[in-house]
């Protein structure tokens, strides 16, 4: 092949140029009167057609191409593909919003999700590449011998990745329904089509090149709106540098707003409401009957007097929406009590770390550290990221590739905190204190889909900070509107969010299908299977898992976003100790690894279930909530699992016989590169 890198570079530059031209063209057409709906549709369909084209062009029937892109992806592009693989719908839509709402506390995600790459680079990527097979369970199977380590690996891959896939497809449904007005369920299946066109025909090879294309779109979509905001606020279009100054302005605004008498009053009213709701919960079931009676009386009064029809309808709706039974009432009132308490809580400055009195502050710090390390180890154990070490030509390229990945990921993660600060500046300086009757249009339009809610509790007709509740996803999706940018920027953001969700879903699907077809079917079930069969099984698995994921996503499972954060804990506990010991400790054997993976995974699940839930209705289990150990939240359950996993591997390995000479030779082959004489 004549000078592949140069040719790739030409394609890449041409592609990026074409994309920029498309955005400019749509921007010009908007000025000439193209309706926003059309812009949304153009972005959605042109990008999916683009991904489909790459998917079809990169089709392959070669098994190495299908599983690991022929191990031929140059480090730079592999890094780009890894970062698209990595940055999910949650990174793209949720991170800036989390930082907006949680301030410093949200930085645990920024630190954890980047610091994990140090572990990937130093402890895993080069050795996995030197091993040079197909999947992560593959490594466990070869290193520890027998089928059991491989089997547990497959189970952990499926467990951690499937929830994650569902969340991505769910994300696609949200984006398409919000931006082009498709029905959510239809959007989910558009997403499914978007995912399958990339991965079905060309496997890893097609997915890699699509991800490169998707990275360009998603990073442009992320950085452009903030750069414009930054230019407007400071005259410097480099938000990552300019936001220090804006952060100071935000802090000054906060100091002013937090102390205003009407804010203090609004917070007091919310705390009162929370208390009242708490009393009502304590007086269940009588309070439910009383509440229904009270509303009925009020309706009677209104009807007897000369109240407007509109007011009567409002109260009637309140009565209709009252929970039907005691359990539903408890859930409903607990949620509204929490919401009211949150609105009434003392606000915290954006940059303040670990607020509260000494005890609360130290506990917050402990949880922050636990979450940071849990996310780091989880990052270094997610199979779809580790898989990417197999796709580079050499070990040296695998090392360089991690550097590029981290660089490309950092572009987004350095921007996210700036995004939050600029959005906060826009909202605090432009929105808070203004008249509720004259709020900008985006509040009504995003309020309809439940992402914004406003509640004038003190009835002064002005918007207090405490009266405004924002969903984290809103920040990225609505910032272009909040800042009054043309619709083409919103369309670009939607295309970026779509690219982030699709690229991650593709990588995850391939990982699941690979584990099921390569490890479960070929290595364990039918080692004599022909390559055609393996490819066929792999494609079937891909299709089945994708359809299954879309079906689950179409049910709109409420807890899905929460479950995604668990995937990190599960992957961390299942894979990290076994992989690291497998490379750096020759004495680790099969019994140790199997026990360690099981103990780690089970302990993690046990902890997060018992800290998070009090009852599991569909299993008939009640009253299982326990006090967290050292106050560590369920989000960081993996910290216990990882520790227990390491200890178990060491203890059980030492209690049983050392691994065979053949397995020890395997460890040497992973550690020592071949050398010229």
């Amino acid at each position, binding site marked *: 092949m004549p000078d592949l890198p140069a040719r790739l570079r030409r394609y890449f530059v041409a592609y990026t140029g074409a994309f920029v031209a498309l955005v400019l063209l749509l921007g010009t057409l908007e000025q000439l009167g193209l309706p926003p709906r059309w812009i949304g549709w153009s972005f959605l369909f042109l990008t999916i057609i683009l991904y489909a084209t790459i998917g079809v062009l990169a089709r392959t029937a070669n098994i*190495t191409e299908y599983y690991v892109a022929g*191990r031929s992806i140059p480090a730079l592009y592999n890094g780009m593909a890894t970062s698209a693989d990595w940055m999910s719908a949650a990174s793209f839509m949720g991170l800036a919003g989390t930082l907006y709402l949680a301030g*410093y506390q949200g*930085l*645990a995600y*920024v*630190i954890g999700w*980047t*610091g994990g*790459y*140090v572990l990937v*680079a*130093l*402890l895993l990527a*080069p050795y996995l590449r*030197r091993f*040079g097979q197909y999947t992560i369970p593959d490594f466990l199977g070869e290193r520890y011998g027998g089928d059991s380590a491989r089997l547990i690996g497959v189970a952990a891959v499926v467990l951690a990745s499937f929830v994650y896939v569902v969340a991505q497809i769910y994300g696609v449904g949200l984006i398409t329904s919000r931006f082009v007005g498709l029905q959510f369920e239809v959007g989910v299946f558009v997403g499914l089509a978007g995912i399958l066109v990339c991965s079905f025909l060309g496997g890893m090879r097609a997915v890699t090149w699509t991800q490169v294309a998707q990275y360009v779109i998603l990073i442009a979509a992320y950085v452009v709106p903030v750069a414009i905001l930054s230019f407007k606020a400071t005259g410097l279009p480099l938000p*990552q*540098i300019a936001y*220090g*100054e804006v*952060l*100071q302005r935000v802090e000054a605004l906060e100091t002013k707003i937090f102390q205003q008498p009407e804010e203090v009053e609004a917070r007091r009213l919310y705390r009162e409401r929370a208390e009242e709701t708490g009393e009502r919960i304590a007086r269940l079931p009588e309070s439910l009957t009383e509440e229904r009676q009270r509303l009925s009386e009020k309706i009677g009064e209104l009807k007897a007097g000369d109240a407007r029809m509109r007011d009567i309808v409002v109260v009637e709706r309140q009565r209709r929406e009252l929970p039907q039974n005691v359990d539903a009432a408890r859930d409903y009132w607990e949620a509204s009590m929490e919401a009211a308490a949150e609105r009434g809580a003392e606000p915290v400055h*954006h*940059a*303040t*770390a*670990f607020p509260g009195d000494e005890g609360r*502050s130290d506990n917050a*710090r402990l949880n*922050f*550290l636990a979450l*940071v*390390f849990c996310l*780091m180890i989880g990052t270094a154990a997610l199979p779809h990221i580790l898989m990417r070490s197999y796709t580079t*030509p*050499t*070990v*040296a390229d695998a*090392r*360089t590739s*991690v*550097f590029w990945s*981290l*660089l490309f990921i*950092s572009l987004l*993660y*350095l921007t996210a*905190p700036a995004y939050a600060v600029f959005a906060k500046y826009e909202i605090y300086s432009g929105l808070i204190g203004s008249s509720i009757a004259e709020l900008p249009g985006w509040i009504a339009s995003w309020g309809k889909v439940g992402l914004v809610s406003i509640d004038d509790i003190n009835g002064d007709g002005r918007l207090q900070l405490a009266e405004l509740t924002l969903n984290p996803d809103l920040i990225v999706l609505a910032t272009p509107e909040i800042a009054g940018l043309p619709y083409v920027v919103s369309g670009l953001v939607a295309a970026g969010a779509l690219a982030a969700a699709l690229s991650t879903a593709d990588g995850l699907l391939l990982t699941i299908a690979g584990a099921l077809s390569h490890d479960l079917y070929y290595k364990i079930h039918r080692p004599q299977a022909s390559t055609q069969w393996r490819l066929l099984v792999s494609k079937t698995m891909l299709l089945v898992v994708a359809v299954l994921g879309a079906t689950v996503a179409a049910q709109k499972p409420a807890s899905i976003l929460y479950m995604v954060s668990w995937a990190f804990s599960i992957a961390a506990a299942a894979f990290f100790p076994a992989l690291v010991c497998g490379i750096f400790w020759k004495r680790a054997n099969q019994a140790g690894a199997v026990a360690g993976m099981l103990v780690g995974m089970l302990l993690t699940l046990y902890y997060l279930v018992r800290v998070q839930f009090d009852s599991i209705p569909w299993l008939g289990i009640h009253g299982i909530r326990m006090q967290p150990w050292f106050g560590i939240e369920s989000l960081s359950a993996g910290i216990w699992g990882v520790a227990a996993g390491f200890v178990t591997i060491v203890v059980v390995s030492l209690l049983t016989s050392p691994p065979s000479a053949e397995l020890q*030779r395997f460890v*040497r*082959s992973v*550690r*020592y*590169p*071949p*050398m*010229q004489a």
Partner: protein
Amino acid sequence: MQTSDRQKQYWRRNMRVTLILLAIWLLATFSACFFARELNGLSVLGFPLGFYMGAQGLLLIYLAIVGFYAFYMNRLDREYGVDEGGSR
């Protein structure tokens, strides 16, 4: 395959740089998070330092670690005549 002395030496140097970089990673992460309250009293580029470390400083340190490791190991590969080019 018998492991040669040169291979063992290569592994020792690999381990040494890995451990040093891991120590930097751990120390930087831990102290930036643990002392965030105190660091916020200082200011850099207009940011409170604790916030800056979490939002940018640590990321740049991680990038430097990963970049240095790739650079160091690639040089070590050349020094020891490691031959892994294009192995499939």
